[in-house]
Structure formats: structure tokens, C-alpha cells
């Protein structure tokens, strides 16, 4: 087992992936286990960043930086604003009043992971065609986006506008 690990870590790219995934998982776990809300948000920001890094190693440069921009930049701050806007009296999460619920949930999650893990291990995916050369990722994405996927793109813009206007209307305080 050990030599396989060393073999895995030998090439730079794997090392980077290993580090990033480690950070991602720790961030996620901290998000669950920490008690103070802001710390949780920070932990998750860490996860988002490390995922961005993994996207870049996967050759998705544009998506990686968009992820960093949107998730680490915008959504985390939005969450922090959300936290500040609402007062957190019981800052520390009181002990789980629902031991049964959590216990069962943990078991469910682990079983789900087991199934997924099993499927993943057994699935054998063989790439049929040659991998795409990652020369100018942004250019290609741009071309693809506006030729083949222009309709979803338009729908996305509509969706965003609707969402944001909706958010403002919902959140606006009725000026007394």
C-alpha cells in the first residue's frame, strides 16, 4: 500500500491534487464541527479555494478562477453579511438535542458514501477520443459558449436578473 502511495505522490500534479483535496476535506469537516458561525464560513471559503485549485489542475483554468471569484469572493461575503444581519444569540451550537436524528443521519451519509465509493471503484471509464489540448482554455470555452450553448447562456442571464431582483424585493425592508 505504502509504495503505491509514494508512487502516487511522486508526480507533481498528483501531489498538488493530494494537497488541495486534503485542504478541501479538512475545510468541509471543520465547517461541520466548528461552533462559531464565522469560523465555519471561513473553513468553507478555504474549501472553495482548494476546489478552485483542483479545477485548474484539471485544465479548467477559466472555471477555476470563476469559482474563486464567485464562490470565495462573492458568496462567502454574502454569507458573512447574512450572519451579521441576523443576530446570533446562542452563538455556540448547543449540544445536539437530536441525538437520534444525527446518529441516523451519520449512518445514512456513510452508507451513501459506501455505495458511491463502491460504484466508483468498480466503474471503468475508458476515454474514447483524444483528450482536448488545453492550449487556450478561455478561448475555447468562449467559442463553445456562444455557438453551441448560447440558449442556456441566455436563460442563465434571465435567471440571474430574476433572482437578483427577487432577492432585493424580498429583502427590502418596508420603509415605514
Amino acid at each position, binding site marked *: 500500500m505504502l509504495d503505491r502511495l509514494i508512487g502516487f505522490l511522486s508526480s507533481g500534479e498528483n501531489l498538488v491534487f493530494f494537497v488541495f483535496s486534503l485542504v478541501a476535506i479538512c475545510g468541509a469537516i471543520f465547517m461541520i464541527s466548528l461552533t462559531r458561525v464565522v469560523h465555519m464560513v471561513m473553513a468553507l471559503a478555504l474549501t472553495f479555494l482548494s476546489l478552485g485549485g483542483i479545477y485548474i489542475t484539471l485544465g479548467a483554468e477559466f472555471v477555476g478562477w470563476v469559482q474563486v471569484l464567485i464562490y470565495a469572493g462573492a458568496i462567502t461575503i454574502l454569507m458573512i453579511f447574512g450572519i*451579521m*444581519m*441576523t*443576530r446570533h444569540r446562542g452563538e455556540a451550537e448547543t449540544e445536539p438535542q437530536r441525538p437520534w436524528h444525527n446518529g441516523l443521519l451519520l449512518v445514512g451519509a456513510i452508507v451513501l458514501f459506501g455505495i458511491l465509493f463502491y460504484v466508483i471503484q468498480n466503474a471503468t471509464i475508458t476515454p474514447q477520443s483524444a483528450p482536448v489540448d488545453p492550449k487556450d482554455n478561455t478561448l475555447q470555452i468562449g467559442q463553445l459558449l456562444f455557438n453551441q450553448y448560447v440558449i442556456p447562456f441566455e436563460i442563465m442571464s434571465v435567471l440571474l436578473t430574476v433572482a437578483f431582483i427577487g432577492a432585493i424585493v424580498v429583502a427590502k*425592508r418596508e420603509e415605514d
Partner: protein
Amino acid sequence: MAQLERIEPIREQAEAEPAAGSGQQTFADGDISAAYEATAGGLLRAGPPESGDGLRTEELLLNVGPQHPSTHGVFRVIVKLDGEVIREAIPVMGYLHRGTEKLAENLNYTQIIPYTDRMDYVSAMTNNYVLVNAVEKMLQLEIPERAQFLRLIVMELQRIASHMVWWGTYLLDIGAMSPFLFAFRDREIIINLFNELCGARLTYNYMRVGGVKWDAPPGWIDKVREFIPYMRKKLDEYNNLVSGNEIFLARIQGIGKYDAQTAISYGLSGANLRCTGVSWDLRKDQPYCIYDRFEFDVPVGKNGDCYDRYLLRLEEMRQSLRILEQAVAQFPDGGDIMGKAPRVIRPPEGEAYAAIESPRGEIGCYIISRGKQEPFRLKFRRPSFVNLQILPKLLVGETMTNLITILGGIDIVVGEVDA
């Protein structure tokens, strides 16, 4: 003597039974904490509103505290913020209270004069004059011509200096750094003039009962004469620098607005009153000293907002320059500077009230004398203290940034507020 009787009955009556039915909740003498509790303390302790009314989001209780940079000294406003909008503001004063009026009760009149310098430390001359004028009224002294002129020139110079301090700090509060330097550069000239005249830059202790202490040194009057055109040029420069600035106008127009009736009912005076259109300047309406000999007009605002007060004060500076110009022209070239004041000043029993127009409004001095060297009771009507009372009303509904604009607009000096 008639006034005396009038005093006695009031005093007995006051002691006999406390003012009944004064609407205000009266507190026994010692019970200051209750008074404080009823006002600011209550608000503080109320803490964040329970979520009962739930609809408001987080309510922030902010202390625009005593050591805040833009409150011209140790003055504190407790502000209940909803986001940026102020829901309620309660000013808290008394941090600079030195008990001048109580101390004065066992100081003879000459010794009180240095204390008046430290009340409104930005315009000390007008403080000196109001005390001295009150005593002279009691003694019915005759003030020599030259002393009158010196007093007038000195007071008008002091008015200009005071307005310049106000102008520099007010714009600093709003956010511009440079104007402050401009203002203090020009004020330095006036300060040097005073230094040459009476030896001090801020606390002059220049006037004495019956006259002034020092005579103008040789060439002093010429320096004043040269200062006037220089100042006019500088005032135009100030206007160019700031008054036209659109961003500045956007910040200041329409903020802290009140009408004439409110101003009068709050007892405001000075630029705060005149900005609402009420033309009331003691120099014109109750002339004292030799103001009646010169003609100058009293600038009056229209809609009572910060911008009007700003323009008003700039205009007042110009008018003071006009007065100075005429005063210097008519300056007597001889005559003694002290009237026939007795060596030991013992004003006869009785009371007197003298009020003059200080750069911040009507400053008054009310003295009750029992014929001894020390006044029995000395009371100053301090314009900053009175003008401050309108602040809470103005602040409701404003944002945090406007709080500073309005406070600066009223132009208070905390030394005068707390005495």
C-alpha cells in the same frame, strides 16, 4: 434698588416650595442620578430592543463618544442606529465643566476675567467684554473713547478668527483636508496681532473693568489696516476652493433644516437664528459699546439649513471687515485707556445683565452683587449651550454622516457648553 426687592421675594419663594407644575419632572437637588437615568441612562440600559416588535433588524447603540475627533472637544452623543439611519440621539455634556460660575463667587472681578477667557476659548475677547460690561453697568462707569475703540476692534478681529476656526474644522469634518490649513494660515495673522497687543495667543485677559489693560503698541493699528484687504482676498479664495464644489453642496444643502418658529422657541441665537430669516443681531438691535456709530448689515439666510449657516458665517466675516475698516479709520489718536474705576471694585448691591453678540450667538452675563468685592451670583448665558438643544430634534431620521455635518453647522465650543 428696586430690582433688589424683586430678587428677595423670588429667592424666599423658591426656597419655600419648589416650582410647582413646571411640566418638567423636577428632581430633588441631590438626585442627579435620577435625572441622568431619566434621560440618557435609560436609553443606554434599554439595550437592544427585545425581538417583540421583531420587525427591525439589528439595532446598534453607538457612542459618538467624548473623544470623537469631530465633536470639537469632549462632547458626547448617544445614538440609536438602525443600519445607517439614526432613530434617536441623546447629547451628554459636562465632561469639560470646571464650575467657573461657582468659583467666581469668591474671586473679585479682576480675578474672574482670566476665567472668562477659558469659557469660549475660541473667542475670548467677547467673553471678557460681556463680564466687564455687566460690572460697568452696575458701577455706571464711563468708558473712555479710546478704550471703546480698542475693545471694538479687538472683538471684531476675534469674531473673524473664531469664524475661521469654525470654517476650517467644519470642512475637515466633512472630509476635505486642505481648507483647514488655509484657515489656520490666515488666522495666525490675527493671533499675532493679539499677541502683540496683550501678550497671549488665546487667553488674552485684556479687558479690565472701566477700560482695557494695554494700549495698542505703535504701528499696531496700521497692521490691522493692512490685514483687512488681505483678508477680503482670502475670503474670495475660500469661496472658490469650497463653496462651489458640487460634492460639498450635495453634502450640505437641505441638511439640518428648521424654520424660524422652531429656532425662536429653542432660543437659538447668532448664525443659527439668522439662517432662518430672523434678523436679530445684538450689535444692531441692542447696540452696546460704540457699534451704533458704524453701519454694517446683518446677513440673513432663507431656509435654515447647514448651507445657509455656512454662507451666513462667511458673510459675517465680510461685515466684520467692514466694521474694522471704519473703526480703524475713526481710531482716536489719543486719550486714556482706563476710565475712573475705583481701586477696589465693589459694585453696589443689586443685579445686572449684559448681553452681546459673540461669534456663536448672544452671550449674556448676569451678576447679583451684595456690595462685596466678589459677586454673590455670576451666571453666563452661554450661546453654544442653548444652540445645542436643537441637535437631538435635528438628528432624528438623518444618517450617521449627516450627524457630523449638522453638529459642525451649529458651531459649538464645548468649553462654552459646559462652562
